[in-house]
């Protein structure tokens, strides 16, 4: 542990995402890192900046029928359908392990109504070991005919406000990329009190089996992730960071140190690694090393000098 601390102190990789201090900017994205325990043999969890767990809802969800995933060019589609154990079992079973690991644990939450988000937040109040909440607003609002919260500024703001009011930890709002003006969405949740924003969630995509003449996914449509979406994610992070004053967390197709640095330069204060965890379970730790090397070899005082440091 001493060795680890020494190594973590230089290069200085610490960042602050709206009231939450991280030892470095590398986190793992919701739904791609299980409840962290799955990776304990492969990654030194305490070396990561943070871990975001699989999205949790008020009640358990079975998710969609198979087939849930399909590979696409440099990417994958998933239609997991927000399968999760529900908040009660999450607290009873998963938090026991999570509160014991030396890394900030961020709980990703989702709901069908503003009220569900609120109740979920209230239930998570005071639970030991939760460093922050990440609000997934790419979910259909059942009261508004299934339009995703994350595509209408006023609905995104309403969720943000409800969660923020009930929460006792910093609130990250995770934006949907399936919108025309990401800056507008970013401003809406900032005004509603978000401590930081993370983006992007998956783009909506589809695949068809031409022999069976059926959609590959039982759910017909699914979320596109992986390297394929990186250019879109980077552009949106750049635009979002230019639109708000709260910290921005970059997500989308990050696999290499170069990818992570692109997001920091575009204005992200931290990043999350998603699909790449499947391809290389060690990737998040490798990115911590890689960013450290860059900071050292470019003789920077800290990684913070890179944030938004794009030149024109």
């Amino acid at each position, binding site marked *: 542990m001493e060795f680890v601390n020494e190594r973590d102190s230089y290069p200085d990789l610490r960042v602050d995402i709206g009231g939450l201090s991280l030892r470095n900017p590398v986190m793992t994205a919701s739904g791609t890192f299980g409840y962290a325990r799955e990776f304990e043999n492969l990654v030194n969890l305490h070396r990561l900046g943070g871990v975001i767990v699989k999205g949790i809802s008020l009640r358990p969800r079975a998710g969609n*029928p198979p087939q849930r995933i399909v590979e696409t060019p440099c*990417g994958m589609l998933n239609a997991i359908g927000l399968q999760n154990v529900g908040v009660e079992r999450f607290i009873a079973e998963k938090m026991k392990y999570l509160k014991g690991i030396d890394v900030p644990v961020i709980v990703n939450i989702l709901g069908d109504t503003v009220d569900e988000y609120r109740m979920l937040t209230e239930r998570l109040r005071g639970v030991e070991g939760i460093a922050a909440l990440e609000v997934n607003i790419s979910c259909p609002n059942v009261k508004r005919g299934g339009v995703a919260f994350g595509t209408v500024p006023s609905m995104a703001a309403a969720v943000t406000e409800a969660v923020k009011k009930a929460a006792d930890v910093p609130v990250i709002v995770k934006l949907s990329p399936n919108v025309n003006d990401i800056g507008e969405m970013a401003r809406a949740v900032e005004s509603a009190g978000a401590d930081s924003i993370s983006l992007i969630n998956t783009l909506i995509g589809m695949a068809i089996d031409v022999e069976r003449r059926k959609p590959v996914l039982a759910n017909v449509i699914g979320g596109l992730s992986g390297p394929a979406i990186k250019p879109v994610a980077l552009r949106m992070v750049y635009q979002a960071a230019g639109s708000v004053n709260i910290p921005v967390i970059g997500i989308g197709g990050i696999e290499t140190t170069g990818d992570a640095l692109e997001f920091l330069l575009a204005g992200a204060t931290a990043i999350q690694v998603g699909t790449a965890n*499947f391809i290389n379970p060690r990737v998040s730790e490798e990115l911590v090393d890689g960013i450290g090397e860059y900071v050292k070899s470019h003789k920077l005082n800290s990684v913070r000098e890179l944030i938004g440091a794009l030149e024109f």
Partner: protein
Amino acid sequence: MSQHQEKARIIRFEQLSELNVRITLDAPLIAASADAGQFVMIRTGSGQDPLLRRPFSLHQTSSSGYIQIYFKNVGRGTHILAHTKVGELLDVFGPLGRGFRFARDRAACLVGGGLGIAPMLFLAKKIASSSRDHGRDLIILGGRSREDVEPLVEDFKEFGLALRCATDDGSFGIKGLVTDLVKSEHLTRDTVVYGCGPENMLEALNRFCRSRGIACQVSVESVMACGMGACLGCNIDAAQGDYLHVCIDGPVFNTEDLAWNS
């Protein structure tokens, strides 16, 4: 459950038939902790496309730290693997999943169809090396034609267990399905059938075993992204309703835990 990510060197490359390949890899950490029926996830290329790892059953492990996979070239990923060469490194990650639950005190009937033969060698080895009477143990292998079965028979014979073969076209063993052989054997109620193969074979096996009240474990497939319970992408319908996940609840399941179409 200890898992390892290794850069494994290709030690041996065997083209067993036009499309079927067997690769021996030096992966000591995985070899040391693997059990029959478990699988590994292999990165087939070095670039970002194909993106995802591909799952392969452990065909065999050795005490010298080698693991073997046996696969068919069916698509992009396996095409790349089928064109690797001795000396190259593959990024392998495993062992993963729950393997066969070998019932030491009961007769074993191993049934492998086509590429489903892959995990059976590992299981046969395990059973053969267990100190008990093997008089009632039996291995049944099948495939479309000779080339799917014959190249593997010598390896199975080494264990000295009874062995029957079948091919669809009769070019090796009897002409017929592995399930025909299973039915023709007089399996006692205390036998455990261990199966792996195409879906329709597993369905037939399930129907047969259920009708006779014989326990049956099968290794099933699904599309996978992570192989380790993180993505929740590999679900299959469970008997109870709801879902099971092939990579962590399986790939080997008791047939009564799964929902069957027929």
